[in-house]
């Protein structure tokens, strides 16, 4: 029986980002299935402003974590000036712990990403797209380079694409292992061949991005949605999934479930349905906690997920965020102190060190949580940690400090007993 939720009749959902086609990553297979037809339509029939308008109408919101409306972002690009090149950066850095959807999308359908970048290029009159891939994905870079070369050979990318007068290049840039490069201004610094220190905003990338030229930054999955929207229409896209945050979504499910992996479904799926799809908790254990969108988003207790759906509004009401939709399910045996210690270690390791509250704060966070985990902590350390979060949030150049503070604050708030049990008592019994 069809179940109606925000996600609609998801049981009969047909995948569009990763349609069930063998060898879709090969150019000829992709083209046999209608690939690059949208690009042709966009290049020959549509005006740039229509492309952006269509993107706006689709209500697509960025899949990189912040959920910014994509059409709006594209419309921030200033008017075209001769001699000022304009760029697109595709954020394929994907280092948020718990997130692995972009890698699978690139492995199985790289051409939809190339086509999306080219469509964006037409919509914003861009010169080139820099594809920033994290250095760890060396194998996938090789695969993408091969497919990109095929696309160049078939005149789909480069000079006079598809026989029109349009030109655009796609250039793959290999990172070298730094989470902070996922932050948009840091990514631009890294592309310019500098240390990846995030920049102070404003100026925003649309005014002054890479090499001080107008630049737009989008996530891999966001760009992969562009050909779908322009090919099948914004109305079709807006009708999928949750009303205010529509479209197909790649759910990366990991942790203590029976069938982890990347699943494509509409947005707005019930968390409980997704858990069932992923085979339930392994070993028949009970769910203890869920991180719905990568390490930075607040953790949810098992009793908080009833009726919550995977879209920006519903998760905000529940006290968390959609983030990257990289979902980590943790079972009843999980030690939340050990969890938080590892998360704090991650942020301490990845802080770029530019701002004092972040550089020092993440270090002290790790020290304090390590102390609690080792059984040497005092109860007042918990309040000290919460105070530390206050000192870090909103006082830094980029959002990494906030991203480090949220999980600490919320894990302590929502699993306080777990932490208190590990701390020394507040009052020592007086020796009678």
């Amino acid at each position, binding site marked *: 029986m069809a179940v109606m939720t925000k996600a609609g009749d998801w049981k009969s959902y047909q*995948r569009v980002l*990763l349609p*069930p086609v*063998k*060898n*879709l990553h090969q150019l000829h297979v992709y083209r046999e299935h209608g690939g690059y037809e949208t690009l042709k339509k966009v290049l020959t029939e549509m005006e740039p402003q229509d492309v952006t308008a269509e993107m706006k109408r689709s209500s697509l919101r960025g899949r990189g974590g912040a959920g910014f409306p994509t059409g709006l972002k594209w419309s921030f690009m200033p008017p075209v000036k001769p001699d000022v*090149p304009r760029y697109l950066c595709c954020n394929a850095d*994907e*280092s948020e*712990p*718990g*997130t*692995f959807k972009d*890698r*699978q999308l690139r*492995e*199985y359908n790289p051409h939809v990403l190339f086509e999306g970048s080219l469509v964006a290029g037409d919509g914003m009159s861009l010169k080139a797209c820099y594809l920033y891939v*994290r*250095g*760890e*994905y*060396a*194998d996938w870079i090789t695969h993408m380079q091969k497919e990109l070369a095929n696309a160049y050979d078939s005149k789909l990318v480069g000079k006079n694409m598809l026989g029109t007068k349009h030109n655009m*290049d796609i250039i793959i*840039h*290999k*990172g*070298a*292992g*730094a989470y902070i490069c996922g932050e948009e201004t840091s990514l631009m610094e890294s*592309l310019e*061949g*500098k*240390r*990846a220190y995030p920049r102070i905003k404003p100026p925003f990338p649309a005014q002054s991005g890479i*090499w001080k030229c107008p630049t737009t930054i989008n996530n891999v999955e966001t760009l992969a949605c562009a050909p779908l929207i322009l090919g099948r229409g914004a109305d079709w896209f807006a009708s999928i999934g949750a009303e205010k945050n529509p479209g197909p979504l790649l759910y*990366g*499910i*990991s*942790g*203590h479930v029976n*069938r*982890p*992996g*990347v*699943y*494509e479904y509409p947005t707005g799926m019930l968390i409980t349905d997704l858990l069932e799809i*992923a*085979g339930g908790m*392994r*070993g028949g254990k009970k769910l203890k906690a869920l991180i719905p969108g990568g*390490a930075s988003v607040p953790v949810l207790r098992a009793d908080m997920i009833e009726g919550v759906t995977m879209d920006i509004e519903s998760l905000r009401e529940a006290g968390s965020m959609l983030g990257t939709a990289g979902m*980590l399910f*943790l079972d009843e045996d999980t*030690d939340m102190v*050990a*969890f938080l210690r*590892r998360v704090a270690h*991650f942020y301490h390791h*990845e802080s770029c060190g530019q701002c004092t509250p972040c550089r020092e704060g993440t270090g002290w966070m790790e020290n304090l949580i390590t102390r609690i985990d080792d059984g040497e902590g005092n109860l007042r350390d918990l309040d000290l940690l919460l105070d530390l979060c206050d000192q870090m949030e909103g006082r830094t150049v980029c959002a990494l400090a906030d991203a480090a503070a949220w999980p600490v604050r919320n894990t302590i708030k929502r699993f306080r007993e777990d932490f208190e049990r590990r701390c020394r008592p507040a009052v020592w019994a007086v020796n009678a």
Partner: protein
Amino acid sequence: MAEFIRNPVVELPDPNPEAHFSEEDLVFTEDEKSRITDWVNQYPTSDGAVMWTLWLAQEKFGFLPPEVLQLVATELSLPYAQVYGVATFYTQYYKEKKGQIVFDVCTCFSCQFCGGYDILAYLEEKLDVKRGHTSACGRYTLQEVECLGACGSAPMMQVDNGPYMHNLTPEKIDTVLASLEAGQSLPFVSITLPQDEDEMGGNRRTDADAEERYLTPPRPRQTQ
């Protein structure tokens, strides 16, 4: 304070470090030079090519001591300080010599709770090397790294900044070590999406060297 001045906590780098490579070794071949030129042409200025060139240098020399950084700086006509700054910012550029084979075991939270630390401990025992160190014979380096973007197939590791090994178990590590010992290279493994398994009966790529499914991980014991 005086104590601090007498014993500065920060160890300053040696101003005249001993070179690891001789003058003759420190050159790029014509072929490598043309690759560098190709990279430079992809960016408005030669700065952009710094990361690709450092990767090339690391592939060639194994690691990036000051004289190699100087070579890269000269090749791209950039200040040494900038190249040094980039090389020291990113974790994947090796500033000191590593083993011939580097194991990067992910222990970030998805892997942590699926047995990542067990895998790390098993490798420590098997290779007789502590995490973060190189074995006495200089063959293996074992490192603990942050999320590598394969959380669904946790616990996992990366070998030599190249292939990913998924769904690790001690038995699987034994096989991997045996094939490395035999001088074989590891295959590219493609993970089958659960939905593909249902709808297509297997992996969608027919050209992958090896296929695997996302598996239910074993129960973890250690979390640190």
